[in-house]
């Protein structure tokens, strides 16, 4: 049998899409890699106190209750590693092949990292790792933690650690959030976001945690794990101010610069992409959330990083749209549709301003030394990437990749892709292009799959 729609990813966007589609009478499959619903945003252990520290948990509770009482076939632990073109599309997981006439890709995003000396020391992790360890397993990342990088996500990570009794020694934001005040048009209609941020800042202040802006961690030190970091002031152009470095002892560093959308499945299907304002490769979608491939829809971070509220709105819209495409009567009234579209536009405007304010600081390539590892898997240092450009004559990221192997290890460029693309552009004296980022994004096998599972595939 073939489902009307298969939704990949059970975070805010995928959950909202699955619930909207089943509400409209569709036969829906929901496939997710994790053992529990909620994605990264609503990651939880399963038990009492799951709601602690979560935003909009009531929304998750309502969506998961509605899902449980519906006909949606939800498969946990089902990482989709390949999708055959359709319709019907055939979605391959290690345990099954699911067929559907249309698909909604809501695969979310992961932390975006920038290299710096010492970033490969144990104890240096992404903010998402600190969050996942705490929410998913109830373990704190350290006892004296530095939180750094750029973006609003640093704030709930820091306050989550504080609530768990951890000493956060400082939060260092590379951007200048005061600039939000200069974009009243973009902030209009998203007052909740500002209230949320104000709540986090108040919690930091209560615990006397310094929140410093236009600061960056430019180096980490330690023997077997991180024991201190160097924090530098940044000037207006995003370069480290000479002589401003201060050494800060710590036993963990959570650091990240925004997010990278997870695009393996749509790229393998041939969906068109574009470079978003934050430098991420994202899917090109029409007003209804359909990608360039008919029958392939997308919602949430894969259409442009914008946060959970935007993901919920996009999921609900796409769920309703695919239901109509499947021949079901429309479930959204015109008033509801207009409200959702208005909300989506407001949240997208906010996201654009957010990306501009919390952009990776332009000066980061100067923090690297010749021996600083850029690609963690293949242990490719900056010197080899530079020589690929200056001595071997590479002028694009794909060529750099084939000359010296960054992005060719286990993670397939998920971690170093953005940085290597940006370094290449920097070394070539030009700005980052979609082709640079795209050179690290194509992974026809989206998830690790055992040879035994491949051998057991029918046909």
């Amino acid at each position, binding site marked *: 049998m073939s489902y009307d729609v298969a939704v990949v990813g059970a975070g805010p966007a995928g959950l909202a899409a699955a619930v909207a589609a089943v509400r409209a009478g569709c036969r829906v499959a929901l496939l997710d890699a994790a053992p529990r619903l909620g994605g990264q945003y609503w990651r939880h252990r399963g038990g009492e106190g799951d709601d602690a520290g979560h935003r909009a948990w009531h929304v998750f509770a309502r969506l998961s209750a509605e899902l449980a009482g519906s006909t949606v076939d939800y498969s946990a632990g089902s990482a989709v590693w390949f999708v055959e073109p359709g319709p019907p599309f055939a979605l391959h997981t290690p345990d099954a092949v699911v067929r559907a006439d249309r698909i909604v890709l809501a695969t979310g995003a992961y932390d975006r990292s920038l290299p710096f000396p010492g970033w490969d020391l144990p104890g240096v*992790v992404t903010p998402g790792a600190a*969050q996942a*360890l705490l929410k998913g397993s109830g373990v704190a990342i350290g006892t004296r933690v530095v939180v750094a990088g750029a973006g609003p996500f640093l704030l709930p990570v820091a306050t989550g650690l504080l609530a768990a009794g951890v000493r956060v020694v400082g939060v260092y934001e590379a951007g200048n959030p005061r600039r939000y005040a200069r974009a009243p048009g973009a902030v209009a209609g998203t007052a909740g976001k500002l209230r949320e941020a104000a709540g986090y800042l108040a919690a930091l202040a209560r615990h006397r945690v310094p929140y410093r802006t236009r600061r960056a961690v430019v180096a980490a030190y330690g023997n077997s794990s991180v024991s201190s970091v160097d924090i530098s002031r940044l000037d207006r152009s995003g370069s480290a101010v000479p002589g401003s470095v201060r050494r800060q002892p710590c036993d963990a560093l959570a650091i990240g610069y925004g997010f990278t959308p997870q695009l393996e499945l749509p790229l393998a299907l041939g969906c068109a992409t574009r470079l978003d304002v934050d430098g991420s490769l994202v899917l090109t979608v029409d007003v209804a959330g359909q990608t360039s491939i008919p029958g392939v829809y997308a919602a949430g971070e894969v259409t442009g990083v914008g946060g959970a509220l935007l993901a919920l709105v996009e999921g609900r819209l796409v769920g309703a749209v695919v239901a109509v495409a499947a021949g079901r009567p429309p479930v959204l009234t015109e008033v509801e549709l207009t409200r959702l579209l208005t909300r989506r536009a407001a949240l997208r405007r906010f996201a654009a301003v957010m990306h501009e304010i919390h952009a990776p600081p332009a000066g980061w390539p100067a923090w690297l030394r010749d021996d600083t590892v850029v690609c963690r898997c293949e242990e490719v240092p900056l010197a080899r990437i530079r020589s690929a450009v200056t001595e071997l004559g590479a002028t694009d990221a794909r060529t750099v990749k084939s000359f010296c192997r960054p992005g060719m290890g286990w*993670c397939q460029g998920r971690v170093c892709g953005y940085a290597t693309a940006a370094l290449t552009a920097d070394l070539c004296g030009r700005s980052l292009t979609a082709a640079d980022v795209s050179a690290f994004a194509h992974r026809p096998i989206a998830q690790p799959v055992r040879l035994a599972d491949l051998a057991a595939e029918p046909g």
Partner: protein
Amino acid sequence: MSYAFRFDGREVPAQPGQTVAAALWAAGVRSWRTTRDRGAPRGLFCGIGICFDCLVTIDGAPNQRACLVPVRAGMVVVTQPGVGR
């Protein structure tokens, strides 16, 4: 309720539902792999199965992502040098 597994010959306590990486981290272990070129220690980095830095050998099978594998009582976890074979 708690249960335990073995890591490099010693017993590590764990709680049900925790990942191997979380239980190791709670026990003060920060690395469980060394890289194949520099021999550098690696442990948790992305925490969500993306980066493959936390690869470890579990019950004889190398290259398991410690941040994804749930702890099972009695499992045997050993530090993985290089590619694990």
